[in-house]
């Protein structure tokens, strides 16, 4: 798993790494679901689409994860198959398009209220792209 839980007094925090930006987004989503203990039904499969624009990659990531939290709470859906594209504008990520495939949530251990920007900075490291992210729980 290209993510690990970090110690945080009140909330949940993850370090995530991936070879490229798209996989960083996908692995952060998987890490978030893992923290929440999401278990999916096998069928029926569902498909949702999502697009967002934002001034930077971090904001796109927060938008993407916030969308997943919304589906979790409102429709009891989670996703395990992601098709993402990120368009660059002036050298900065500007638009995200996503096709999300998943199913109803069978069980869930914990609720995530929100994704935060706290110390959120996508960095290039030897492992590719890396972030630390804090979730409000």
């Amino acid at each position: 798993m290209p993510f690990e839980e970090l110690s945080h007094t009140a909330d949940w925090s993850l370090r995530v790494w991936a070879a490229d930006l798209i996989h960083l987004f996908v692995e952060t989503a998987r890490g978030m679901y893992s923290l929440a203990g999401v278990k999916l039904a096998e069928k029926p499969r569902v498909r949702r689409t999502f697009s967002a624009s934002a001034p930077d990659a971090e904001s796109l990531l927060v938008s993407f994860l916030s969308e997943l939290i919304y589906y979790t709470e409102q429709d009891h859906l989670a996703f395990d198959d992601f098709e993402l594209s990120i368009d660059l504008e002036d050298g900065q990520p500007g638009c995200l398009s996503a096709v999300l495939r998943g199913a109803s949530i069978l069980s869930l251990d914990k609720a995530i209220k929100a994704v935060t920007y706290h110390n959120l900075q996508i960095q290039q490291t030897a492992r590719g792209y890396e972030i630390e992210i804090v979730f409000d729980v």
Partner: protein
Amino acid sequence: MIRLQDLTRISDYEWEIPQSFRRDMRGPVRIFSTRELLEQILGDKSLEQAVNASTLPGLVGAVVVMPDMHQGYGFPIGGVAATQFPRGVVSPGAIGYDINCGVRLLASSIELEAALPRLDSLATLLNQYCPSGVGVKGVVHVNVPELERLMRAGSRWALKNGYASENDIARTEENGCLEGADPAKVSERAKARGLEQIGSMGAGNHFVEVDVVEAVLDPATAAVFGLRQGCLAVQIHCGSRGLGHQVCTDYVQDFQSAVRRYGIELPDRELVCAPMDSPEGQAYLGAMRAAANYAFVNRQVLAHSARRAFEETFAGKLKNWQLTQVYDICHNMGKVETHEVNEKRLKVCVHRKGATRAFGPGTPGLPPEYQQTGQPVLVPGSMGTASWVLAGTETSMLRSWGSSCHGAGRTMSRAKAKHDIRGDDLRRELEGRGIKVRAGSMSGLAEEAPSAYKDVDAVVGTVVAAGIARKVARLRPLAVVKG
């Protein structure tokens, strides 16, 4: 990393990080803590976060932090910051995602001995009538126009619809309604999340708890608050649910560009803010107040559900089984208040995140019966430990923006608690001590274990010794319902 030697000791209970500590600070950080609690506080990044909070444009005076403080995101939990109104900023992250998270206390004349045989069935009914868990539906469902009326009226909506009494409203902070709520500034998505969650607890550290008033420290004030030694009381802890989370999410996103527009530089993007007199600031204030009013209604409907459980358990078996509201307080909120600064009365926006308003005697806005005593300050302990009812003081008005602590405060990370503690073991331990537990998630229960929190008695002892609150009564838990 902030070290003990970076702090100036003001007294045994008060410390300061001077404004000179970092160049971008706009005021000092005042810490209410003992040396022992301070050593725990220095174990995480909460003081760095308090220093970051002191960079908010338009900051007035000191950022104040309470002894239950701990690391949050952006702004520390247990922090209070005041910004000049209306030119200073409002920061959604300094209020938090759970807008108007707070605590309500209901008192009764039911004596412990009479209640004990029925405690188990009472806990089961509370669990049934106060829905908890992730994304769970509440007991009241509304359509969008009705939700908008609710967000404007707050607790008055609950009164009109049979969930509240006039006494409940009089004994709710701001009478259960923030003026200036603007549902038009609440996104469609936030409204969708709010339609079916009214009267639900949610998850995390939210709870409904039955307590016994174990000790009365100030009999005269306890009598005014309606608290009787040896009798049952109920605490309700929750907030604005998904609606509030979405409002904060929306505006923290929007304000990422607002700070660029207004040339505001901050050390942490979670602290993003906008001037209160800007269109962005006005929009957030309108939406935040709407979410706050939703939270007042949510706790009011939960109180109605608790009363239903008490009625089914005790009516016909005991006389005087009714629950009377002591007070309802907010601990995640931004409010425009008037405070004395340098011997002048000044309007400021007080951001409280994990801090309780603690207005002292004679402060405008308190119910007439609390004008002599100061407002009740409700400090729930960790699950299985004592909770406290305090009263606000004149000193809190002068030293802490009329604020005090909001709980015990976490000291152990959630990851460590999950690793070290088993939820079912904890449940057995609590049951062995006579505390009935109803919990939706065993891992969630483990994360909220008493050992993950500071000693609430030490926290309360600190705010009392510092003079920003005084003790009224101590509560001991009998039954806990958690999400």
